[in-house]
């Protein structure tokens, strides 16, 4: 595929999304305040960047495990626990860079513990990661007095990685870590075989334990970067009852969309582009006062389901289209 075609196909989805939301919001009276159209403006750019960067980091952490044949439910809990620990340490030391460093280290340690439990316990991945999710969630009630962290994001100096332009640093670092692991390490390259068929992969000599441990380390670093952005933008409260999985799943849409969009480039670009497009979509809904509540869920659910159906049936659609054009040519 030519480079220009690759670029065109990659950018097609967010451009179409932007044009569609522009047209829809332009026709909606709620998007005009004192005669001014509110969809276009710097607020759109800021919203898209801040939301897309957070989505990209969490989505990459999810996709890194999925790409290697595992679904790690504990990523959300690890992110929240990391955010509380790193945020409190950052607050006490007054250093955003130390916050970032502690978050990355903490993310690596927590993901390594999960991997160790999975390997040593010989547990199914779902059981192991749900168990660790519950453990990490319970720890959020114990560390730093169980108060979570609510005033980190309020401090402009500390929360630089949650705002422009500082947010680009952890996001770019997360993308770099993902690309390095997937393309420059042996275990990263072999991961695809495990994802396709774990038993066959092990039988042809792939050492799964090396893959599990190394993937978890790199995934942990990305979780730490995601936690840095999260604590820089949000109040982080102790969580329970697998609610952290809900936080993690709220960022999963770009993962599946990114796999399809990434066919024209690679998965990192695909996920990033999908995150940007979904941020544009959400901003448009916000402008129309549909950004919260039931309608947002319905619109988002229907849109995502249509997108997945389209991407899953693309081959069949192409075949049907070819048949149709052939018939027209014969006629």
């Amino acid at each position: 595929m030519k480079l220009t075609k690759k670029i065109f196909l990659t950018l097609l989805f967010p451009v179409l999304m932007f044009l569609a939301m522009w047209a829809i919001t332009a026709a909606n009276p709620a998007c005009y305040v004192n005669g001014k159209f509110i969809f276009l403006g710097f607020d759109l750019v800021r919203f898209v960047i801040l939301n897309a960067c957070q989505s990209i980091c969490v989505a990459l952490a999810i996709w890194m495990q999925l790409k290697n044949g595992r679904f790690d439910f504990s990523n959300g809990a690890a992110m929240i626990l990391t955010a509380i620990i790193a945020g409190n340490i950052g607050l006490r030391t007054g250093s955003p860079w130390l916050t970032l460093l502690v978050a990355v280290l903490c993310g690596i340690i927590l993901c390594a513990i999960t991997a160790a439990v999975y390997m040593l316990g010989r547990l199914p991945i779902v059981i192991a990661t749900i168990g660790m999710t519950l453990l990490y969630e319970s720890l959020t009630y114990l560390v730093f007095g169980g108060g979570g962290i609510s005033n980190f994001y309020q401090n402009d100096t500390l929360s630089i990685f949650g705002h422009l332009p500082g947010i680009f640093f952890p996001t770019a670092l997360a993308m770099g870590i993902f690309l390095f692991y997937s393309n420059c390490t042996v275990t990263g390259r072999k991961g695809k075989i495990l994802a396709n068929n774990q038993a066959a992969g092990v039988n042809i000599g792939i050492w799964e334990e090396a893959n599990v441990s190394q993937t978890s380390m790199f995934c942990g670093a990305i979780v730490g970067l995601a936690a840095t952005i999260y604590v820089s933008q949000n109040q982080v409260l102790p969580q329970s009852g697998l609610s952290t999985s809900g936080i993690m799943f709220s960022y999963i849409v770009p993962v599946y969309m990114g796999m399809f969009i990434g066919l024209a480039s690679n998965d990192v670009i695909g996920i990033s582009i999908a995150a940007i497009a979904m941020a544009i979509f959400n901003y448009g809904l916000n402008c129309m006062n549909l950004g919260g509540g039931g309608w947002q869920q319905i619109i988002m659910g229907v849109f995502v389901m249509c997108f997945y159906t389209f991407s899953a049936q693309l081959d069949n659609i192409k075949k049907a289209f070819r048949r149709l054009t052939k018939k027209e040519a014969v006629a």
Partner: protein
Amino acid sequence: MKSTKKVLALVLTLALVFALAAPTAMAKARTTKIGVGLYQDSGAAVTAVKSYLGSLEDALNVKFTYTVLSNTDEAQNITKVQELIAAGCDGIICTMDMGTEAILQECADAGVYLAGYLCDYDTSFRNNYDNVFKNEFFLGTVADGGCADEARRGYDFFDSVIEYNERTPDAPIRHVAMTVFPAFAFPYQQSFAAQFVEKVEEYNAANPDKAIEVDPLSDETDILMFRPMDSTYFSKHPGIDAIVSICSGSFVYPTMVSAGVSNTMKLFAAGYNDGDEAVFGSKGAYQMEIVSPVEAITYPLVLLLNKINGVEFPDQPAEAERRGSSVLLINSDEDLAKFQNSIYLSFKPEDAFLSPEDVVALTAYNNPDATYAGLVDVLAHMTIDDIK
């Protein structure tokens, strides 16, 4: 050998008799167990409540057990109360009016008394008065800042905005927008907004040169569905100087920060969150916060303990009542300095409005002179100016 056996048997018998008799001889007054169903399981308010109640345990010979109730799930609340009853609680303090009739049935079956805190039980008061407020197992409730439509919180917001303008004549607030929670969960917040608008209109009529513009409350943009305000709020309310957030500021302030307006726009909000003091008054956007005094829990606690001990106040009302407590209204740096000496921030029981001895003196079973009027009067003296 025989005599040895006899001696052994005698020793064993004596030991048995002593073991049976000892608990009776050493018995002391049984510790009363009170269950407390809070609305969340962490945060400054919860820590302060636990610190305050913990300081009363020895003086009142009471042990407290905590749980968390739901403001949406009736079945969960019933289950939580069942758990407290099963844990041996003699009385329960609840912060939610959800599933109250069923909860009272559970309490009646177990002989356990119920009272309310931080909740005006308005749904039960309006729709189910006979089954709840006339129920012998329901002892009454205390709500922060007054019950239902008695509350005048909108006026507090107005007063704070005017005080701010008087303090900063060079940069007064001239344009305000509001936010509230939905009416199904907080039915009186919209009336507080109306109170605020009413006062502003009066003020504008009297001071046309200092008029304050208030954007009308919009159903679509200004009602926060328990999720953070979205950043388009500022585009939809262009030119505002401040937000009057009748709901918690924690749903508003993060968006102000991410939108980059926290250094220029002011926020008048209900509810205090950990760390707000760092961005309050002259240090940041927050210019007003309202905090519920944790010591107001003394009202349901004393009513429960009296009842459990079989004593009533001489002026005890025939039916359970709902009472409003004062609130801590913080709208200046001076207020914040005082607030930092309260149990709410220090978590030290000695900073509470009431000492354990004060609470003991409020109970009818410890103090024959104690009255219900005295207990109610205490609730009125928990303002920012009452902090020592």
